[in-house]
């Protein structure tokens, strides 16, 4: 940790919604190039953390630092421009447009010089769009309206759009949710393969522990707005508190023991 440069840091972040504690004493340092996964039950504070990091929510106290700068007060747009990009649990796409057009929009927002004068379907832009589609294995869907596309494809497109700006930190909110079980691994495989060409720090929320184990090199476990474990996947998943509050494996084991006895 100490030898890697710190790209993102949360210091004493607090957030409440009425009586609900969504974030309490969150202190996290993320190193450049890390693959970090966030686990925890629904309502444990994972998405709140993401929303605070991307500037959608402002913390009640504490601060967020990105690349050595305090970015707590910035909004999502400003953070996106600095290189903190995200995908969404429910893909946020332009439904009546085609997959290619969705990417053209993303390319348009990432390169705004002379955007009034440059045609949207310029050859260079189209090439960039097609290249991105190819990287995510979506060439076949280029001219299809996204409202007609299957869930997994929509997820990939959503992530591809977030990648257009070549972010330094990429946050993926439940990349495999809403995707059938046998599609999950191929999807993550595609994403990680596409990301391998970038020097990008990835933070993703995930409920499937196999995916967490395989694709992250560090895990944060959330419980009631607090980080209760922060280590490599093996250690975190073996943690008693994590087993009790997050994965539920402790309870399952107890049940098995009882059944055996």
């Amino acid at each position, binding site marked *: 940790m100490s030898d890697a440069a710190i790209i993102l840091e949360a210091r004493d972040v607090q957030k409440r919604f009425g009586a609900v504690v969504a974030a309490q004493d969150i202190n996290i340092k993320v190193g450049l190039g890390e693959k970090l996964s966030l686990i925890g039950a629904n309502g444990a504070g994972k998405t709140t953390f993401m929303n605070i990091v991307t500037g959608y929510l402002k913390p009640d106290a504490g601060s967020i630092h990105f690349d050595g700068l305090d970015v707590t007060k910035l909004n999502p747009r400003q953070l996106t421009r600095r290189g903190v990009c*995200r995908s969404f649990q429910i893909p946020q796409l332009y439904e009546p447009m085609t997959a290619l057009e969705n990417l053209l*929009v993303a390319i*348009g927002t990432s390169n705004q010089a002379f955007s009034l004068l*440059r*045609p*949207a*379907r*310029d050859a260079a832009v189209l090439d960039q769009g097609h290249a991105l589609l190819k990287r995510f294995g979506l060439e076949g869907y280029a001219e299809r309206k996204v409202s007609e596309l299957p869930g997994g494809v929509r997820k990939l497109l959503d992530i591809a*759009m977030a990648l*257009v700006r070549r972010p330094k930190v990429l946050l993926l909110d439940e990349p495999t949710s809403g995707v059938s079980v046998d599609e999950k691994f191929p999807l993550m495989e595609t994403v990680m393969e596409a990301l391998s060409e970038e020097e990008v720090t990835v933070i993703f929320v995930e409920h499937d522990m196999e995916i967490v184990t395989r694709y992250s090199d560090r895990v944060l476990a959330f419980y009631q707005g607090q980080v209760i474990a922060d280590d490599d996947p093996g250690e975190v998943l073996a943690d008693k508190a994590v087993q009790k509050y997050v994965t539920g494996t402790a309870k399952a084991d107890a049940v098995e023991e009882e059944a055996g006895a």
Partner: protein
Amino acid sequence: MHASTKRTCLAGLIAVILLVLAGFVFQHWQTWILFTATKAIGYGLVALGIITLMRGGLVSFGQGLVYCTGAYASGLMATRLGVTDAPVLLVVGMLASALLALIVSPLIARYRGIFFAMLTVALSMVLYGVLVKMNAIGGSDGFTLPEPTFLGWQPSVDYADLALYLLAAVVAVVASTATRLYYDSMAGLVALAVRENELRVEYLGSSVFKVTVRHFTIAGALGGLGGTLNGMALGHIDPLFSFWTTSGEFVFIAVLAGYISVSAVFLSAMILELVRSFSNLYFPETWQLILGGFLIVVIVFLPGGIGSFWERVKEGRAARAQAEQEEGAGS
């Protein structure tokens, strides 16, 4: 130059030639059409502004504000300063309205849906209220404009309508070509994305606020052009230019046209003017009844407007082509 840019400019050039030819034909055949067409172009320009706003997900129900501002700015220029040159007046009207829109837009860019629509109505009605009471510039009667000149040339009475129509046609084509190029540009595509999902646009790093300000200012400039043009066509302007029912007609044209096609705007404006002329002639008492009924029919049966009709034809052709291709591949 990009191929699509070339195509758009070429289409504009052809449109100018056709419109000019049509002008000379109607001058010798049905002269009244020229006046109607000029007015339709004036209305169409304002509606083009609404369509630009619609592409960003907003509808203004108060474009009378910029329509009236353009008409009054250029009208006062003509009566007070004696400038009667039509192209100069058009530029003055356009700039005055664009400036007003630019000043107002940061205030209203925070709102959406009916709140945006009603705030624009409120602003246009403020202007209406002010003008009605400003007796120095005619109060509710408004004032009459001098005959326009064209770069120093004063056409004879017989050719006055033709001259103004030709200018209007050129302005309409230049304005629509420019708007089309904007719609097809990178920034235009991003603006269309605003309509679908603002959240994502912000998360991609673009400012929805800026898009709205830009659109409202463009709509202001187009509204100013339309107001100036109609002021010159009618020879008289009054505060009703800013009344909410006037704005309602602009929205009518925009809805009839849909936001996909630029030329459909002028077609629907012409349809509206023709329907107005005929019902004034044959059913003078029921013009609004016809307009209202027509509007409901359009909303029910052609929700995407006339422009979507062409889009559907195009899609149908593309689908057929694809089907044939697949058939060919299969055999």
